[in-house]
């Protein structure tokens, strides 16, 4: 069988989530004082909150890839 998957999918998922998490969270930090912008989301700085969630999720994927163990679902 020639088709050993050459790329661990957890790497790009983790990488993308880390990058998007940093971008979103960073944007949330930068716009934190802008209360008008966050009226839509009911006064929550959803960018900062969700950026952190995505960053942490991304790190978990990267750690799983590093450990090389299949994630338990």
């Amino acid at each position, binding site marked *: *069988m020639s088709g050993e*998957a050459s790329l661990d*999918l957890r790497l790009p998922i983790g990488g*993308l989530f880390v990058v998007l998490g940093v971008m*979103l969270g960073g944007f949330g930090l930068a716009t934190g004082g802008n209360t008008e912008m*966050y009226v839509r*989301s009911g006064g929550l700085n959803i960018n900062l909150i969700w950026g952190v969630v995505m960053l942490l999720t991304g790190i978990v994927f990267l750690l799983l890839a590093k450990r090389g163990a299949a994630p338990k679902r």
Partner: protein
Amino acid sequence: MELAPVTHLSAIDYAMMAMYFVFVLGIGFALRRSTKTSSDFFQSGRSLPPWVTGLAFLSANLGAQEVIGMGASGAKYGIATAHFYWIGAIPAMVFVALFMMPFYYGSRARSVPEYLKLRFDEKTRTLNAISFAVMTIFSSGISMYAMGKLFNLLLGWSFDVSVLVSAVIVLAYVFAGGLTSAIYNEVLQFFMIAFGFAPLVFLGMRQVGGWSGLTSRLNEAAIANGQASGAYTHAWQGMTNTATNPLGVEAFGLVMGLGFVLSFGYWCTDFLVVQRAMAADSMLAARRTPLIAAVPKMFFPFLVILPGMIALALTGTAGGIIPAKLGADGAPLLNSAGKVVMDFDLATPMLLIKLFPEGMLGLGLTALLASFMSGMAGNVTAFNTVWTYDIYQSHIKKNASDEHYLWMGRAATVGGILLSIAAAYVAGAFNNIMEVLQLVFAFVNAPLFATFALGMFWKRATGHGAFWGLASGMCGAMLHHGLTLPNGSVPGIKGGFFGLVHTYPSELAQTFWTAIVAFSTCVVISIVISLATKPRPESELKGLVYSLTDKPVDTNIPFFKRPLTFALAVLAMTALLNILFI
């Protein structure tokens, strides 16, 4: 008529969208070097772990129809829409895992039509392969068309540019990495959808005052729409009679039509999803694939249906979310009772725009874009496989080298994308043609599960029986549709074109009964013709029919890791969800 776009994206939104595409293309590029044989390209070399194939199994079906359509149905029917998951998907996914995967994976067939060839004969395979190939092209085209139209409306993007750019991106990564690339991107898209929509539901639920606030607002909406209080928040309320629930169906039609015929027909025979499981690295992984998919699937209603319900709840108040449907003259359409008709398809996208500030908005719209594109890619990978193996190799050029078929797979990818673009423009130019085609597909699909079930579980079923059963099931579906109408419709695309013998209370009820008729016709004709024709010797049916195949033995794996245990847990969870939302 050109309308002003609903909103604009800012730099951060575009930057995140661009970053997603960098990763999508990067995956395709990284897989290019390991895609050397036709087996790599079409079957991922049967080498993927089950969590990847499982999430792709779910995600391949998670196109635009799912995210936008289920939100629309949520706004229209309420939580009863979850029947499309809890009745209309989970049982079939469990069935395909336990009972059918051993044949698909074990027979070494490379596609679903090829299984039909092994079990029955060439003509049954060809009938299935051609109808499936045509269907994938149009599905992919419809997905492109819907995307182009939606993003034009929301952001003012040019229809041509969004269709072409998305086609080029999908082409690039499928061409390079084949099925593996499509599957990897489907899994990536699964996480994008989950993380793009979870905050939408979170913010929406906060806004309406949690489940109790949602319930009281939807009760008002239900009464205003002539439904009983609670109709939108209880999945089984009023299901004994078609007149007393928002779906307009009764429990028997729902369970038999949707839960049995339509759902088993899709999840157990559609190569688009089965192909994902066939790419798994072992028989056990292939059997686990649909079960792994079933776990997120049962919770998806909360991600895709709830936004529609929230949008409806917020529409009752000032500054409503769901806009009115506009007529050709730009004025809002009114129904026969003089009330404004809402454009439910915009429920989810508009909620996204209303609740997300810039930043999150970019993420949410990227998730939406991702679901459109993986819908296209899924269809294109299923198309290139069926074209190359079931049409080209079996009818046009047998016995060519493996490089030749790999080349043909890449050529078919280009061809499939070009045809999809053409289909997208046809959909834009002739709306009715698409409706007619979708109807024809419904006729073609309705009897399929009967053919597979007879083939797998009745060794006496013959090729002639299967072929004529399938053909007559399709005709039965057409005849039933042509002789019935949903209440309040005029004869034409909605049915009644052969005359009118019965009127159904709703379109859904008519659809479910069309499926039941097609299935029954196919079973009866297949049995009659099979009994009248010569059976195949049992020695040829080993590995293809249940009673002549060694069952997978799971006694060597711990009991909690066995597919059967997993399946029972999935069914118990689904039953619990039904009870919670009864």
